[in-house]
């Protein structure tokens, strides 16, 4: 059974949006008696920026955790690249090409920026433990190759200056950027961002939006993001899913969603500019 593949389209700014990469079908997730997600279906197309929005407790983060494998839904199917996904561990899903960042920043605080981003390359490193012990030959070559890729990402995110700094000592905005770098380093098929702009000031938010758009534009990375800041979401995303109390109440382009009466009632409220 094939997923409903939409025709590739070209956006106004010239990016190519391809077929469906990931499809959630009738996902229901419960914690004991609490239903966090109620029968939600949506898809994510290749090359697009897809946003999931909703008020606090709407189940957005739970949805991301389902995609990323931290949570296993009681009902529904997850389709990735045309195949139904069986029960998998989060690290296996990461190896399939789904990378993510976290709302509360989950970096390896004791390690340098460079080492943190290098961990993102782990899934592309194949040398066995004995090969690493010998070091010369395979392991060394592999390390150098991956290091080059990481240096490119460091340049891209403009964090050359903090390359050697332990990330625990960095300011919040920079930590968020390092975390994005780590996710990016794995060359993901799908990049999940959990509130990338949370807790940032206006300037940092603008920087982060620019990086997200650049990642999408230059690497063609498919991005699914959760965000609280409505203005930002509407500016940078191609399509938006709106959730409220665990259910989907809207889905479409930012303009469509903005006009949707149900969405306005639930979330935007009257008088939102």
């Amino acid at each position: 059974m094939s997923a409903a593949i939409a025709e590739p389209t070209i956006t106004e700014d010239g990016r190519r949006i391809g077929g469906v990469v990931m499809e959630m079908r009738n996902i229901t997730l419960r914690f004991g008696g609490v239903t966090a997600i109620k029968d939600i279906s949506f898809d994510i197309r290749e090359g697009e920026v897809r946003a999931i929005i909703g008020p606090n407790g709407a189940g957005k983060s739970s949805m991301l955790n389902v995609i990323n494998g931290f949570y296993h839904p009681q009902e529904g199917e997850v389709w990735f690249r045309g195949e139904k996904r069986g029960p998998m561990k989060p690290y296996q899903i990461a190896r399939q090409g789904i990378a993510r960042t976290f709302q509360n920043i989950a970096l390896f605080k004791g390690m340098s920026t460079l080492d943190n981003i290098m961990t993102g390359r782990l899934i592309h490193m194949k040398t066995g433990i004995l090969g690493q012990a010998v070091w010369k030959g395979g392991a060394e070559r592999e390390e150098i190759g991956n290091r080059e890729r990481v240096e490119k990402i460091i340049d891209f995110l403009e964090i050359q200056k903090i390359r050697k700094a332990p990330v625990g000592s960095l300011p919040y905005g920079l930590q968020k950027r390092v975390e994005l770098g780590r996710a990016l380093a794995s060359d993901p098929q799908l990049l999940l961002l959990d509130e990338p702009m949370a807790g940032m000031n206006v300037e940092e938010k603008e920087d982060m939006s620019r990086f997200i758009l650049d990642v999408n534009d230059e690497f063609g990375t498919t991005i699914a993001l959760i965000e609280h800041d409505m203005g930002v979401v509407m500016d940078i995303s191609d399509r938006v899913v709106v959730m409220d109390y665990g259910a989907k109440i809207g889905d479409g382009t930012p303009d469509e969603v903005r006009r949707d009466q149900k969405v306005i009632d639930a979330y935007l409220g009257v008088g939102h500019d």
Partner: protein
Amino acid sequence: MPAEFWYGVEVMLNGLMAGVMYSLVALGFVLIFKASGIFNYAQGVMALFAAQTLVGIQTGLVPFSHLINAMLGTKIHHFGWNVPTFLAILLTIGVMVLFAIIVEKLVLKHLVNQEPIILFMATIGLAYFLEGFGDLMWGSEIKKLDIGIPQGGNVWVEESTAFLGGEDFYGFYLDTLDIYATVIAIALVASLVLFSQYTKTGRALRAVADDHQAALSVGISLRTIWVIVWSIAGFVALVAGVMWGAKSGVQFSLSLIALKALPVLMLGGSPRSPARSSAG
């Protein structure tokens, strides 16, 4: 320099090397603690078990011989062969890796995301289990461990330093075993530091120590890492067990050395600190 000064230096050197012997055990603690936040109470017993296994394999003891004899009425104790030291060490490493896998499967796997205190309690249980299991497997009598490291004062060191202090000074009296232990400990610490700093598995180890969720999200399997950490800790335990076993025989008190090593651990702090070996 007066002879007294050189006697002082001699005492200091001996103190340092005794500290190194303890730091071998402490290293095992630090490894597991750094990589998984677990204080492994069983580290000392692991050293004992490793040493017992090495002696057992080396001298061709039949595992569980007392149990077998008691149940079947037989009187077997020895296979009647001796295994070469090098091969015996390799086999013992194999046993320690197997032990790591079993610990992960039976204990750690079921305690993911638990409080450190709960994991600590689990390692206490593990310690008592392994203590009994080791005795059951290899017998509880004191064994002599001989892997060819000479003991006693090192004549070469003594003679070549005798000129330092004039007539009353006869050179440094240093135990050859302690010298070996020092060299091995330095090599072990250096290679572990290199491994954790520069290889991808080392990076993964540090990542897991820092944040489980984030480690999962970049594709690191926690279970694989735990098996690796416990295997390395098993290997370090083997080294510690061998050195202490060679020094004072393989016996129960070996497992208590681990607890004596705790002050070294507290004083020394991080695994990269060279201060640790001098703390002894």
